[in-house]
Structures are given as C-alpha cells and as structure tokens.
C-alpha cells in the first residue's frame, strides 16, 4: 500500500482514459453518499479485446502489479483480464481490483443498465446504483458485507424518501 494512497486521482485518471467500466464495491457506495471508508477501487470492465488493451495501457501507467503474490512483481495478464475472474492489483496510487464479473456472473454489459452516471473531473463515470449494490450485499455471505448493509439500506431509504 502506498504511504499516501490517492484513490480519487486513481479513479480520475481511469475516467480520463477510454476504458469502459462500471465502478462497483465500496467506492461506488461512497460516491453515492455512503458514510463508509474503503481502501480500494473496484471496477467491472468490459471484456473486449480493445477495451482490455486500453485497460492494460492504463495499468502500466499507474505501475500496476498483482497484489499478494510472492516473488517478482507480475504485470497484468491480458488473458486473465479477458476472463470473468478477479485481478487484484496494487498501483502507485493504491489498490485497484479489475473484476471480469461479480456476484451471479454479472458482467459489464449486465451492470451498465443498472448504473448511474456521475461526473468526476468533468468526465462521466458509470457507478453501480445503490439499489443494485444493496441487492447484491443482501445476498452476500461475507461478514464485511453484513456489517456494511445497515448503512447502505439506511442511505437507500433516505434517497427513496427524498
């Protein structure tokens, strides 16, 4: 982990590229107003050849290497990024998880219609909707998700009331 991670700049730089992705996970909830703290950027990227090539170019720019792997740092694997698995990177700006698919096999094409668009640095960012995040967390068996769920549900309730 960098001494001073800067997930905002990491996300701004990613948004400034032509990489197609949907922001998911804790940071997607933060963007929509959840009072939670998250330590990484989670994205579901579109798994086409061109988009993965653009993503790999971005990853090289931010010094991405696989996390939690002993030995010499490994550069991002094109074949892994084309698949549905999760590629967990450490970058010069903080952790970034590139997810081919998330719960239930949901990929970029399935999640994009369930996202909303916010603007970061003047550029559009697709963010998985809070309603969808809550639905996914309700089905999750991860204790961390269970802990976070009441906050997300309260936020969703507030937004629905507004």
């Amino acid at each position, binding site marked *: *982990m960098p*001494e*001073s*991670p*800067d*997930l*905002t700049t990491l*996300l701004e730089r990613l948004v400034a590229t032509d990489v197609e992705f949907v922001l998911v*996970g*804790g*940071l997607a*909830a*933060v*963007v*929509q*107003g*959840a*009072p*939670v*703290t*998250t*330590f*990484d950027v989670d994205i579901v990227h579109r798994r086409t050849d061109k988009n993965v090539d653009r993503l790999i170019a971005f990853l090289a720019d931010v010094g991405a290497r696989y996390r939690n792997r002993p030995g010499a740092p490994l550069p991002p694997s094109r074949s892994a990024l084309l698949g549905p698995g999760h590629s967990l990177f450490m970058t010069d700006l*903080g952790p970034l998880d590139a997810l081919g698919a998330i719960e239930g096999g949901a990929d970029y094409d399935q999640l994009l219609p369930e996202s909303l668009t*916010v*603007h*970061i*640095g003047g550029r559009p*960012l697709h963010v998985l909707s809070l309603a969808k995040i809550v639905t996914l967390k309700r089905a999750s068996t991860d204790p*961390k998700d269970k*802990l*976070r769920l*009441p*906050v997300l549900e*309260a*936020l969703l309730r*507030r937004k629905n009331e507004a």
Partner: protein
Amino acid sequence: MTVAVGVLSDSSMKSDTEPDSVESAPSLVDESLISAMLELSPEERLRQNDRMVRTILLLRQGLAPRTEPNAREP
C-alpha cells in the same frame, strides 16, 4: 476492504434489557453521517474517503510499534 463507519451511533447502543428482535431495535446507523455525506458532491465524497484512509493508515502505523513489545509477552 471497506469499513462501515456509520454503524452504531451512541444513541443506538443496546442495554442488556433491550429486546433482541431486529424489528424492535433502534436504528443501528448514525443518520447524521449520512446527512453530512449527502451534502457533499461525488468528488468531495471521494476526497473524504481518501482522507479517512490516510488517517486510518497513520493510526495503524502509530499503533504498530506499541503493540510489538506486548506481542512478545507470554
């Protein structure tokens, strides 16, 4: 990794005599934190998260040397 910072407001802490059912329990969420976050723009919320991450990491770094001697005790 995500930390839920809005859970368990002081007013929601249960006593031993309070019921256990979820339906009758008070809210476990500090609504004022949600209100504060909703007043920010998406970019401000991201910056706020970064500040929290840095603070947590600083605290962890500050805590680490203090816990090492105790860890060696039987």
